[in-house]
C-alpha cells in the first residue's frame, strides 16, 4: 500500500467541502475520471463577481483522489476565478506531495475544475 504524505492523510481523514451542495442548480458543475479507472471527481462551484465563494465535491477513488478533491475545494474557496483557471493538476500533486504514480488522480481533479469553469458544457452522462 502507498505511503501517504501528511497532507494527503489530513485531507483524507478530514475532507473539506465533501458532499453535493443543497440546491446544486446554483452551482457550476464539472466531472473528471472514470469508474473503470478507479477515480471519479465531481466538483460544484458557486461563483459571485468573478470569485469562487463555495466549492464542494464528491469523490470516488483512493486516498489521493479524495485528498486532491478536498485540497482543491479548500484552495478554491474565496479565490478569484482567474486564479482558479491557472491551477493545474501538477499544482495539486505538488501541494499534496503525491507519489509519481498518483499524479494522474490530481489531473482528474483538474479535469473536473476545467469543466466546471467552462460553464455550460453538459456534465458527463457516465453516471
Amino acid at each position, binding site marked *: *500500500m502507498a505511503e*501517504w504524505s501528511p497532507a494527503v492523510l489530513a485531507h483524507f481523514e478530514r475532507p473539506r467541502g*465533501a*458532499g453535493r451542495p443543497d440546491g446544486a442548480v446554483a452551482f457550476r458543475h464539472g466531472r473528471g475520471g472514470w*469508474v*473503470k479507472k*478507479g477515480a471519479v471527481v465531481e466538483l460544484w462551484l458557486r461563483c459571485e463577481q468573478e470569485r469562487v465563494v463555495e466549492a464542494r*465535491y464528491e469523490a*470516488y*477513488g483512493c486516498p489521493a483522489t479524495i485528498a486532491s478533491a478536498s485540497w482543491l475545494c479548500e484552495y478554491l474557496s474565496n479565490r478569484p476565478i482567474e486564479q482558479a483557471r491557472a491551477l493545474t493538476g501538477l499544482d495539486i500533486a505538488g501541494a499534496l506531495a503525491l507519489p509519481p504514480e498518483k499524479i494522474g488522480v490530481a489531473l482528474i481533479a483538474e479535469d473536473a475544475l476545467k469543466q466546471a469553469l467552462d460553464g455550460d458544457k453538459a456534465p458527463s452522462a457516465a453516471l
Partner: protein
Amino acid sequence: MSEHVPYLDNAATTPLDPAVWERMRACLEEGLFGNPASAHSYGVAAAQAVESARAQVAAAIGAEPGEIVWTSGATEANNLAVLGIARANAKRGKHVISVRTEHKSVLEACARLEQEGFEVELLAVDRDGRLPPERLAATLRPDTVLAAVMLVNNETGVVQDIPAIAEHVHAVGALLHVDAAQAAGRLSVDVNLLGADTLALSAHKVYGPKGIGCLFRRRRLRRRIAPLMWGGGHEDGLRPGTLATHQVVGMGAAFERIHACQAEDRRRAEAYRQRMLTAFAELGGVVLNGRADGVPHILNVAFAGVHGEALTASLGGLAVSQGSACSSASGSPSHVLRAMAVPDQLAAASLRLSVGRFTREPEVEAAVERIRGAVQRLRAFSPLWQAHRRGASLSALYQQPVAEALAHG
C-alpha cells in the same frame, strides 16, 4: 502491539492451538532430536513420533498412514501432485485440467507444465464460483492424465462438488488432485467419500505450525508420481530430506484436535458469519462474492460505491484480507474474483473476513463497527453511491453485471 487488533484473517493462517504447542514443546525438550531415518534408539524414538503423527493425520481424512507424504506445506503438496502426476504419466497423455479459481500453487504449477509441452485447460466457473461437474466432464479426453480441483476456495469459501467431479475424472482413467488446505477442520474431509487420488493439506490453516503439510496419495499411486527433489529416498522416494520431527508432531496434534473441536468451531463460525451478514445487509449495497452455502469461516463481500484503497486506508489496520492475502501483495485484482466476473473495481473493494477457533464475539463486533463506519463515511461523498441512492443500478455504475446485494431482513 498495544491495542488489540481484531484478527479476522484465519483463512490466511491460524494461531497455534496451545494444545498443539504443548506437544511440540515436549518434542523439542524431551530429547527427540534424533534423525527419524536413523536406525539407533534416538532415530527410532523420533520415527515413532513421526509415525504417530502420520496416523493422526491419516485418521482425520479417512486415509491409511502409509498414504501420507510429509511436505513443507500445501504449496509444495500441490506442486508435487500436479507436476509429479503429469510428469510420471506423460507417456499416457499430456492433457491436464484445472480451474481458474485454484490457488496459485496449482495454477503456476500448471503454467510450468505448459512450458514442458503439456496441454492445460483452465475451466471457467459460474458467477457464484462453482464449477458445474458437467463442464469438467465435457473437457475430459482419453489423454487426460490429471484434473486438479480444490475442495474449498481460499478467497470465497465456495465448495466444489468433488465426489461428482471424481466420478467423471475416473471414468476416463485420469487422476484427481484436490487442494483441501482450506477445507480441513471446516468440513468433513474423507478421501474415500471425495474420491480424491491425491489431496493437499497444511498444518497452519488448522491451528498447527507453519512449515509443514502433507500430500495424501493413494497407495496404488506409488509409481505414478515423480518426485520434485532428489536425495535420500525419504517418504517413499517422493520427498527427500530429514523430517522436522517437532513440526510433524505439531501437524499430527493439530489434525487430532479437529475431531474434538470441529463441531464447536463450526457452530461459532456460523454464528459470526450470520452476525456479519445481517450487519452488511443492513448497511446495503454489499454483494456476497460466493455462495450462501460456502464454508462458514470465510465471508467475502464487496462494498459498492467505495474504492478499495480508500476502504483499506480507513480500516485502521484491521486484520482482514482484501480479496486474498496472496493477491493483495501484488496489488493486482484477485484472479478468483475476476474469474467470477466481479468488476475489478468492486473486487478491489472486497474484504475476506475469516473467523477461527480463537475468534471471539467482541472481535467480530469491533470489525463490523470499523467496516461499517469506514464504508458509511466514504459513501457519504462517493458519486457512485449517491447515484445508486438516486436509483442507478450497481450494474450501470460499474458498467458490468453485478450480483444482487445482500437482502435486508
